[in-house]
């Protein structure tokens, strides 16, 4: 059965967990594997942290809108903000230095999701992440 839902949050790090739990509730309810739910959980958290810290520069009170759709084949998360679009291409894929204390988020998102696109929409940023049901 198809699922379509939206979640609105403001740009506070403390709000991320609520959004993660909302998305994983839908993924679990739609029968995604435990591993896939875990991947969605972590990837969404990392993406929202990036939006708050980098797109909004840590400014609180800004709006973030998450649209979730689930069908027979995939789960799609679209995260919209009203800040400048995120230039993913500016962040080169470099080997992870296991002693650094930050910068793991983008690589985790790429590894956890089956498709990730950073683009722009409605004068803001849009991150579209896809998790396939049977990847």
């Amino acid at each position, binding site marked *: 059965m198809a699922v379509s839902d939206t979640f609105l949050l403001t740009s506070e790090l403390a709000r991320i967990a609520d959004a993660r739990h909302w998305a994983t509730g839908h993924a679990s309810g739609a029968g995604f594997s435990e591993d896939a739910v875990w991947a969605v959980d972590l990837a969404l958290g990392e993406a929202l942290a990036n939006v708050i810290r980098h797109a909004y520069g840590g400014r609180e009170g800004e709006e973030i809108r998450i649209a979730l759709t689930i069908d027979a084949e995939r789960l799609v998360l679209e995260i919209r903000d009203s800040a400048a679009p995120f230039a993913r291409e500016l962040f080169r894929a470099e080997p992870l230095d296991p*002693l650094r204390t930050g910068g793991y988020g983008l690589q985790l998102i790429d590894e956890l999701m089956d498709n990730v696109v950073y683009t722009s929409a409605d004068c803001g940023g849009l991150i579209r992440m896809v998790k396939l049901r049977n990847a």
Partner: protein
Amino acid sequence: MQHSISDQHGITVVVLEGELEVSEAPALRDLLGSLVAGPQSRVLLDLGQVSFIDSSGIGVLIGAHRRAEEAGARVGLAAPNAGVRRVFELTRTDRVLRIYDSVPDGVAALGA
């Protein structure tokens, strides 16, 4: 995130409970900073009741590990669940952090 602290054979064992996620990272950083006080410090974080960790949590653990090693102290991690362990693996931090299967294993290793 909640925590409790005990001493086991001279090792400071910190039981962490909940999610080590981005909004909890500053509190975890402060906690570890207060526990790693000098070269004699031996701190074992019991992750058995940690249900989730993200890159911010990883960053705090790496920072604590690095500062401890530089000071001659030790910080270890015990009993991570499968999801937490997988984040260590994906970030390659399992190659540098001191990770033990159980609290007794960690206490024995850090006390050696």
